Every structure is written in structure tokens, then in C-alpha cells.
């Protein structure tokens, strides 16, 4: 396999005499979160029976006309605001003409010259610092239907449920330089759109997929190489694999003195390779022209401002606030804000902890125990078996000394079954920490008395034995004795 240098976290492809840099740009297709389609009132629910969510407009019956869904326009503008982008007050819907069985109109309504959203930017948090990725544009377009080739040996079946569903195509500038940056970029886009409620970001259901443009150039070169477009990749892992393969393929061609053809390629997930789909010569002539069935889309400043007022706190701002207000580390804050549901959970825990809260402890419990459980059970945080309220109570129980961290783990295990109240578990199981110094002193006196020889050895310098006495105290108390008090009293007694 080819070597990839990660010095200074730079992603370079090394060959005998040359180092190559990889240039990546993405065209992300994000399904607009909307109950109805872009130009019709049909439903958009995922997984419905084939052809049950199809109107006469979606199936392009004679004389049927598209009518823009205002909600989808709002969603696109909100996304544009989330991408710090320019909102175009006038945009135009064009027809992109081509024939395919699952494209009933014979054209896709899209936006070509005048998209609804112009240039913007996204900030990525990379291990070596922040990176800005430029957004070229965002436009609205219709999805096509689905051709199903494997149900019948002779015929192709067509499902038009997806036909006419609203998509946002988000085009990045060629600012990405590594598979890791691509991963961070997709995750950030997904995060922003989930915060905004404009796309559910569900890659398994195809709500988020991308065309990946890859080119390579020798390190230090300013010119862009010939690019290849890898069509319709639907997972971050596959994007990364496809880029890795494709970049190496291009480098090999250059090293062999061959040229790279500008073409559209497909990523074969089974063979882990890209292969040519169509060359530039075979590229479709889409004959774009403004759709005469639709007037130019015009939005007022007031319309945009109303949407701006509707924008929730987005990940970058939330992260800043978590650092300022809760004194979290940037690393902790990044983890907690990356997904809106995690952020919501964390904020609920914070709220429920009340005045005397231990933020560090709460973060550790969420990113430690809770994440481990979710991972194990393959659950989203929105499906967490432990509610934010009960986790807050648990953290408070530790903080105010009612239970030790160790006991807390036992309590947490018990909470998983039906989101039980930790307070009740502690009471029912008698797990309350012993924090009465007198009682602990009595306990320790007895232990020292029972192990007089070891106490003498300790006093003679065998300091390792301190742990033995702590262990004995915990054992005798059934783990309930306050470990801090045990330490303090033991030290005093063994002096």
C-alpha cells in the first residue's frame, strides 16, 4: 500500500521523487426536512410502499404545473444563514433536461445560474486547529424517482415516491485537503442542518449524499489538476475510501507520465475502487433554461430577517458559550455540541443539576459512562435509557457526598433498567455513603487493631501498605465509607 505522510497532519501522497497534495470539493445533496415535496403536496415519508406518495405533478401528467412549496424555500434560506452565506433575494428555477425512466418530466427542476444561496463558509475543528471551508453556493432542486433493476429479469421497476422531493445541493469550494477534512466537513454540515431542523442528515436513508470531486497536484503547486467526479457516495467512510483510492490512482497515472481524463466515476464499495462512468465527451448536454412554468423566486428583506430571528444557537456559538459559561475545555465543548441531541441532553443535565453543580463531573459522566452504554447498545442519545434528569440527580449525589464515584457506577447500572431514580436506588439498596467521621474513626481503629503488625510495618516505612488499609476500610464498610474521610483519618491514625 502507498505511504501517506501525516507529518504536521498534512495529508500527502508520497512517491519516489514527488509528494502530492489532494484537492477535494464536495457537492452535497441534502434532503430538505419537509412533509411535502418541492413543487407538489405529496408526502415525503421514508420507506412508504412504492408509488404511494406520488401526485399528478410528480408523475408529470399532461397539463400539470409545479407550485413552489414555501416551506422548502424557508428551509433553504435558513440553511444558507447557518452556512454564513449570502441569501439571494432573486433566484431562478431552471430545467435540466435529460431522459431517464425515473425522471417523469424529462427534466429536473433545479437552479443553475441564479441559486437561492451564494457564497458562505463553514469552520472545521481539526486536531491541529480550525480550518475554514468555503461554500460556493446552495441551490434547491427536485430529486428523481428510483429505478429498481433487480426485481425482474426483463423489466425495470420505477418508484416515484422520491420524485420531486426537495433537495439542497451544497457546493463547497475546492478547499478540502484530506479524507479526515472531508469527514469533519460532512459532520459539520450535518450538525448545522440538524440544529436548524432543515435536514435530518440520515445517510442510511439517503437524506445526505455527495458527489466528490478529486484532483491531485505536486506539493507547492498553485495550479489545480484535472479533476474526477465520484458520483453519489452515501457514507463518510465510503467517501474517505473513494478519495484515498482515487487520489492514488491519479498520482499513479501522473507518475507513469499519463494524463488524467476529466470524467465521472462511480465508487464500487465492494471492490473498494472507483471506475469510469462516463467521460467528458459523453457528458450530457442538459440544455438548461429558465422554467417557464415558474416565476423567478423573489424574497424580501423582511422575509429573510424573520427567518434570521428564527435561527437557533448553532454549534460554533454554542461551543463558545459552553467554554465561557461552563468553563469546559474546547475539546469537551466540541464533543458536546457536535450533535444537537447531545447538546440538548447536556444542557438539560446542567439545568437539572441546580445551583451547586459540578460541570466537570457531568461532562465526564456523559462522555464516559453514558456514551459507552449508548455505543454498546447502538443507541442515539435521544433514545438514552437514562434521562438527563436522572443523570443530573446521580451527578449531584456524587457531588454532595451521598455516594462515592464507585458506588455511582453500581447505581448507574441499575438506572439503565427503566430509567430509575438514582435517589430511590440509593435508599432502597442502602448505598448511602458513610460520611460520619466518628463512625469511620471507629471502623479504622478496629482495622488497625486487627492488623497491628502491618501498622507497625507501615510506620517503619512500608508505605505501600496504606492502600491495604484503605481497601480493608472499604471492604468492611461495604464500599459505602467516604473514601476521602478514610484517607484523612487513616493518615492521622497511622502517623
Amino acid at each position: 500500500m502507498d505511504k501517506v505522510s501525516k507529518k504536521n497532519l498534512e495529508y500527502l501522497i508520497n512517491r519516489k521523487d514527488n509528494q502530492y497534495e489532494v484537492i477535494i470539493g464536495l457537492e452535497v445533496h441534502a434532503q430538505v426536512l419537509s412533509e411535502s415535496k418541492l413543487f407538489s403536496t405529496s408526502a415525503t415519508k421514508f420507506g412508504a410502499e412504492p408509488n404511494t406518495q406520488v401526485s399528478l405533478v410528480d408523475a408529470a401528467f399532461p397539463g400539470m404545473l409545479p407550485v413552489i412549496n414555501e416551506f422548502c424555500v424557508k428551509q433553504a434560506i435558513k440553511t444558507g444563514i447557518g452556512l454564513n452565506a449570502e441569501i439571494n433575494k432573486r433566484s431562478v428555477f431552471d430545467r435540466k433536461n435529460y431522459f431517464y425512466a425515473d425522471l417523469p418530466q424529462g427534466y429536473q427542476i433545479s437552479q443553475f445560474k441564479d441559486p437561492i444561496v451564494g457564497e458562505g463558509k463553514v469552520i472545521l475543528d481539526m486536531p491541529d486547529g480550525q480550518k475554514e471551508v468555503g461554500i460556493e453556493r446552495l441551490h434547491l432542486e427536485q430529486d428523481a424517482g428510483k429505478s429498481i433493476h433487480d426485481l425482474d429479469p426483463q423489466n425495470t421497476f420505477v418508484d416515484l415516491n422520491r420524485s420531486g422531493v426537495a433537495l439542497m445541493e451544497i457546493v463547497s469550494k475546492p478547499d478540502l485537503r484530506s479524507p479526515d477534512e472531508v469527514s469533519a466537513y460532512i459532520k459539520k454540515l450535518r450538525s448545522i442542518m440538524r440544529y436548524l431542523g432543515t435536514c435530518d442528515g440520515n445517510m442510511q436513508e439517503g437524506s445526505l449524499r455527495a458527489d466528490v470531486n478529486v484532483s491531485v497536484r505536486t506539493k507547492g503547486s498553485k495550479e489545480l489538476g484535472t479533476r474526477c467526479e465520484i458520483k453519489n457516495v452515501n457514507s463518510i467512510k465510503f467517501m474517505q475510501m473513494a478519495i484515498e483510492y482515487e487520489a492514488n490512482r491519479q498520482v499513479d497515472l501522473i507518475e507513469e507520465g499519463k494524463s488524467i481524463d476529466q470524467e465521472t466515476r462511480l465508487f464500487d464499495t465492494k471492490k473498494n475502487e472507483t471506475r469510469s462512468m462516463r467521460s467528458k465527451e459523453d457528458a450530457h448536454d442538459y440544455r438548461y433554461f429558465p422554467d417557464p412554468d415558474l416565476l423567478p423566486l423573489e424574497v424580501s428583506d423582511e422575509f429573510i430577517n424573520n427567518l434570521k430571528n428564527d435561527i437557533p444557537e448553532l454549534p460554533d456559538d454554542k461551543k463558545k458559550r459552553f467554554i465561557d459559561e461552563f468553563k469546559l475545555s474546547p475539546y469537551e465543548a466540541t464533543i458536546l455540541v457536535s450533535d444537537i441531541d447531545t447538546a440538548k441532553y447536556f444542557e438539560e443535565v446542567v439545568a437539572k443539576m441546580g445551583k451547586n453543580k459540578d460541570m466537570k463531573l457531568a461532562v465526564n459522566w456523559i462522555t464516559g459512562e453514558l456514551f459507552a452504554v449508548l455505543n454498546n447498545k447502538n443507541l442515539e442519545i435521544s433514545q438514552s435509557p437514562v434521562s438527563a434528569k436522572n443523570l443530573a440527580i446521580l451527578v449531584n449525589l456524587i457531588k454532595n457526598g451521598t455516594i462515592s464515584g464507585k458506588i455511582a457506577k453500581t447505581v448507574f447500572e441499575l438506572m439503565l433498567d427503566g430509567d430509575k431514580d438514582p435517589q430511590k436506588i440509593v435508599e432502597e439498596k442502602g448505598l448511602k455513603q458513610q460520611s460520619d467521621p466518628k463512625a469511620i474513626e471507629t471502623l479504622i481503629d478496629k482495622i488497625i487493631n486487627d492488623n497491628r503488625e502491618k501498622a507497625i510495618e507501615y510506620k517503619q516505612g512500608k508505605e505501600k501498605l496504606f492502600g491495604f488499609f484503605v481497601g480493608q476500610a472499604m471492604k468492611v464498610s461495604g464500599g459505602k465509607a467516604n473514601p476521602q474521610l478514610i484517607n484523612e483519618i487513616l493518615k492521622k491514625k497511622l502517623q
Partner: protein
Amino acid sequence: MSDITKLTLSELVKNIKDKKLSSEEVTKAFIDRSEKSKELNTYITEDYSSALEKSKKFDQKPNLDLKLPGIPIAVKDLFCTKDIRTTAGSKILDNFIPSYESTVTQNIWNEGAILLGKLNCDEFAMGSSNETSFFGNVQNPIDKNLVPGGSSGGSASAVAGQLTPITIGTDTGGSIRQPASFTGTVGLKPTYGSCSRYGIVAFASSLDQAGPMAQNVKDCALLHEVISTYDPKDSTSIDFKRNEYSKELTNNIKGTKIGIPKEYRVDGMPKEIEELWQKGIQYAKDCGAEIVDISLPHTSYALPSYYIVAPAEASSNLARYDGVKYGFRAKGENLIDMYEKTRSEGFGAEVQRRIMIGTYVLSSGYYDAYYLKAQKVRKLIKNDFDDAYKKVDAILTPSTPSSAFKIGEKKDDPVSMYLNDIFTVPVNLAGLPGISIPAGHDSKGYPLGLQIIGKAFDEQNILNIAFAMEEKINFKNKITDWWIK
């Protein structure tokens, strides 16, 4: 009453309201005459028995407050009619039965009218003689083997031949006004956005408009009043205050300024047309209008621009007829083969010609030189009219450069056929209303029409001018019933 079919719409409505005639009697009269008129080939689909049933039902519980109470009407087969075959004059939709109703026809049924059947037209409304229809030529009632014009040829022929009291057509470049002119009837192309395009088989979306066709201006005004409504299902429908056109109709046009554009005096225009125009000017003066010479400098670019824009839109609009979802499908080896055979066999020669022209002018490398330039010219043409309307209230021109021609005469000469639209096309490009009224006969006794072009949304004004001139012209259509044996 033996000559029910000779009555105007207004007379029929009055008779039904006065209970002198039943809807059934009227419907039966038009069906009988239609049955005897098969040689005209006006109908693609007849719906007579259902029409009779509806008329009986109407008579049982007549709602006489409606504007078209129990009036039978045949409509152009470009309007989708629920559960009634709608072909657009094409083989590719030969078996197509819509499950929905166009807004314009729905408006008509809502006012009490009854569907008689679907009228012949040029295939996808592409033609000026009704010769491109898959369902054959339509005869002009004026004379044997004469074209009725197109594309609303069946509609014009049916009104002139009294097979329907009134009808609706569509007009993309003259498809209402030119056949009206050829058959001695009245046809109005409304302002773009006045009538909903929902449920009308599309030809060129930015130009298509439905409109009324009738034997006189008053009937035309009444039908327009019924069909012109704002429709949220059509994004290009315009929400403006519509008049009660028939009620507000007046022949008092004193002081109205009517412009005469010098650019419409085209090379090779027959003397008869020029004379008709002069007569028209005199009639307008007699009505009290003031005649003003105006200039519409970009007129000569209208036809070439139209024959870029309309085919471009058509090439895209007709892409949906691919054999996959509905309509005609040819057998093919694979998807591409099926597409090619379906579209080669399903579309006629003229439609194929326009799809090819349209595809060509939108192709990368040609787009700027053709489509984009044509759109710029379109803007200039609109500006011409805007400038003219600073000086005048309406414009008077001939409707067509000639009277009706013989079937087959221009079939193999598309350019000569396209020239038929030379006076009507600028109106569509500018989105304005225009009406054609019969104004005289040529030496062969064939009718000739005059066109009155109005400001956008000013249908009332051109209807008034037409109404006033109609009275002065006192045109009588010469229908000999030659086709009835």
C-alpha cells in the same frame, strides 16, 4: 324550434332562462347537427349520450342563475377533461384519459355548461391549418377543402358550422385568432396569466393562453368572464381584478385612441388585406375612435424569435411523452430503443421538427446565439408595445396576411405556413390580449379578420372596441351547409 343552432349564446341563455327552451332541446339540436357534420371532422371524441343525460338532469332541477345554464359546449382537445379521452391531436396520447379537469373547463361546467365532446386541433397545438392532427384534417364550413386555420381549427370550424354555440381554444402564437379569422368568427387571446394553464396540455408554457371563441363579441365576452379566474395551481396565473366583461360591454368608444403600426404593412401583403385594414380604420373612426400612427420597430424580429422560444419550450415540455407512464408505447429492445420508437411513431412530422429545432437552440454552444438572443428580442418587442401604449389605448391590425387556403396548399412549406402567424405572434411574445373579429370577405368570398391588441389586463377595452366595430361592420358569415347531405 328547428334553427336552435343558429341562435347566439345570449339568445340560447335567454330562451333557457325564460323556459322557452330546455337544455335537452338545445343539447339535442347541437348533437343532431354535429352528427350530420361528420365530414367537417371537427370532433376527435364525442360525448353525446352523456351530454344528453346531463341536459335532462339539468332540466329536472335547472339552476337559472348560472351564466351558462344547460348550454352544451364542445372544447378543444388540448384541455384535460376528467374521464374523457384527451389526445392533444396526437397519436402519443391516443389512449390517454385524464383523472382530472383543467381549471378553464371546470369553470365552464361550474356555470352550468355541458360537454358535447372534444374538438380536433393541430398536434400539440403546433400548426396553422389543423393539418398536423393525428386525427386528420378539419374542413372549414366556409368552403370544401379549405383549412379552418390552426391550431384551434376544430374549435373555429365547430363554432362557424354551428356545431357548438361557443367554444374555447388555446393561443400560443395565433391559434385562436388566426382560425377565427379564417372562419368568420370571433376569437380572444387573453392577457398571459388571465386564464389558468392548469390541465391544458402544454405547448410553450410562457406563451400558451386559453381563450373564448364565439359567433359574436358579446358571447365572447360572456365566455371570457367565465373562464378567466385566478388559479393558485398555476404559478403564472395573475391575481388581478377581473371585470364582468359581458355586463360592462359598451359600444361607446368615443375618444379611444387606436394605433396603426406601420411595421404591419409587410412585403407581399395582398391588396385585399390592406383594403380591409383601411376599412377597419374607417369603421373605428366612425365609432368615434381617434386614429394614431404608431411604430413597433422590432416587429420583423417577432416571428423568428417566436420560432426559437416556442420550440425550445416545446422540446422540454414534450419530453414527458416517453412511453413510460401513460399514452402510446412502442415495443423496444431496451429503454433507449423504446424511447426512440415511441417518440418516432407517436409524434407527427411537425412536432418532431419543432422538438429538433428546440433541442438545437437550447444546446450548449448555441444557447446564447439563439435562445438567449430571442429572449432579448422578446423584451424589445414588449418595450415597443409599452412605448406605443403611452400614446394609444389599443392597436388595430389585420389578423392574418391572407384568407384561408386550400388543404394541402402549404403543407410542405413550413416557412410559408409559419408566416400565417406574423401579425399574431408579437402579441403572445408581449403577453398582451388580442381579439380577432370578422371584418369582410376577400374576392373568393372567404372571411377576413381584423385584430385589436390591448394593454395587459385591458380585455374590457378591446372587447368594447370590437363590440362597437362589429356593429358598424355588420358582418354576415356565408355558411351554405355544403357538407350536409
